[in-house]
């Protein structure tokens, strides 16, 4: 890998930062090499391994978390840039002993096989449903000026940033559809 030797450089003050982030409702403070992504911060420094590293290039969606309530790919965010902001990971979608309606629907519809993409699918769907409730259009919305009905085509387009190598897509669509209909 390019720059492998550089990765071994000792953390020095010029290239590191103290970062405070609210994660799943709790304030967390860590000192990080500026190169550390939000994904690696969650997984390697905060023991939150729900968000997954798939491609690490923003193409697969398995690292999706909510940043100030909006879905983003945490592998393309340097943690130093989110100082003072709020992050919700799959661990924070519901309390420790309960499931969010979306999580329950994923189980009811068997919306995964290996489960690796699931935390990203769940956070992405949570953010996507909020976007729908704000009236945001998508590329398949016919009329840009009226709120879109959440058809299967809309769900598929809006979830295009999350790949599922097991191809559980029909069940993911069903789980999202049911969650949207019941909320």
């Amino acid at each position: 890998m390019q720059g492998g030797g550089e990765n071994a450089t000792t953390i020095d003050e010029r290239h590191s930062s103290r970062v405070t982030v609210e994660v799943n409702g709790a304030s967390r403070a860590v000192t990080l090499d500026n190169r550390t992504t939000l994904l690696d911060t969650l997984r390697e420094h905060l023991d939150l391994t729900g968000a997954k590293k798939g491609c690490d290039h923003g193409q697969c969606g398995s690292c999706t978390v909510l940043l100030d309530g909006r879905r983003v790919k945490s592998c393309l965010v340097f943690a130093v840039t989110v100082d003072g902001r709020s992050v919700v990971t799959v661990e924070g979608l519901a309390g420790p002993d309960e499931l969010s309606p979306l999580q329950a629907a994923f189980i009811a519809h068997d919306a995964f096989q290996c489960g690796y993409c699931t935390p990203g699918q769940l956070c992405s769907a949570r953010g996507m449903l909020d976007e729908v409730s704000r009236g945001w259009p998508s590329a398949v919305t016919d009329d840009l000026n009226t709120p879109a009905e959440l058809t299967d085509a809309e769900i598929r387009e809006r979830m295009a940033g999350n790949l599922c190598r097991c191809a559980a897509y029909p069940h993911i669509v069903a789980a999202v559809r049911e969650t949207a209909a019941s909320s």
Partner: protein
Amino acid sequence: MKAFRYHRPADVADAVAVLAAEPQAAYLGGGTNLVDLMKLGVQRPDVLVDVTRLPLDTVEGLPDGGLRIGATVRNSDLAAHPVVRRDYPVLARALLAAASGQLRNMATTGGNLLQRTRCVYFQDTGKACNKREPGSGCAALHGQNRDLAVLDWSEQCVATHPSDLAVALAALDTVVEVHEADGPRDVPIADFYRSPGTQPERETTVTRGALITAVRLPPLPAARRSTYLKVRDRASFAFAVGSVAAVLDLDGDVVRDVRLAYGAVAHRPWRAYRAEQELRGRQFSPELAARAADAELAEARPLRHNGFKLPLTRAITVRALSELASS
């Protein structure tokens, strides 16, 4: 990845001053392209100047009826803006056709315009690329060049510009507001991007370290009838193999005004002035649209693997304009 310092500027002047003082500094917007290129070793900045917290995140109507869009407005917010959806659907459609929901939430207006080509040879530090390493050659010219340019390329570079947003903005005669070391300046988008020529490492006409602060859309009532058509290798979340931004203003069935710009054909978003000239003042028909596209593409020089882009671009021109004519 090379270690870097992180700077959150107090204001635009501070940001521009850091870039002027540090030859290896780079602005960080949404990071959707730069962070990836840093992981790949393609870009190796010493300092990141994070501009996302500067107060450049508003969309405001202008007295002349135009719209001013701050450089850090996120792509998703811009696509969802009610005035953009109503008055500039070509812009909303271009944004919505790009990337994924997560990336649109991150990507900024200014960063989108300055994103780098997705030419695979540019992104691979093991390959010759004059854009990445001036003087090293172009592995794409005789390599796998299906996705690359058909117009205005040079022996030194056959890369295409990847942005959809920039294509829509080219069609709308957008003004790019930049702040350089010696102050602010307006640059019409037609003058903003460069042809590759012998210096493909230079992609814009503004000075190194210039910060885009906003883009300004002129009033264009005709743009209410506009659209963006994009062809991809899969149904969603992919870069264009062909795209067209189109604005059509008909008087009866005669073309009173038209704006056309193409994506995925050149080093810059390609405003199709010749096609527009063929269309203006004539009775609209799909055949006329095809002739107009052919006139625009007459000087195209397809590479070994991308000759299909000519009939593709003609076809989407006809389809976009015909849809607008019947809407």
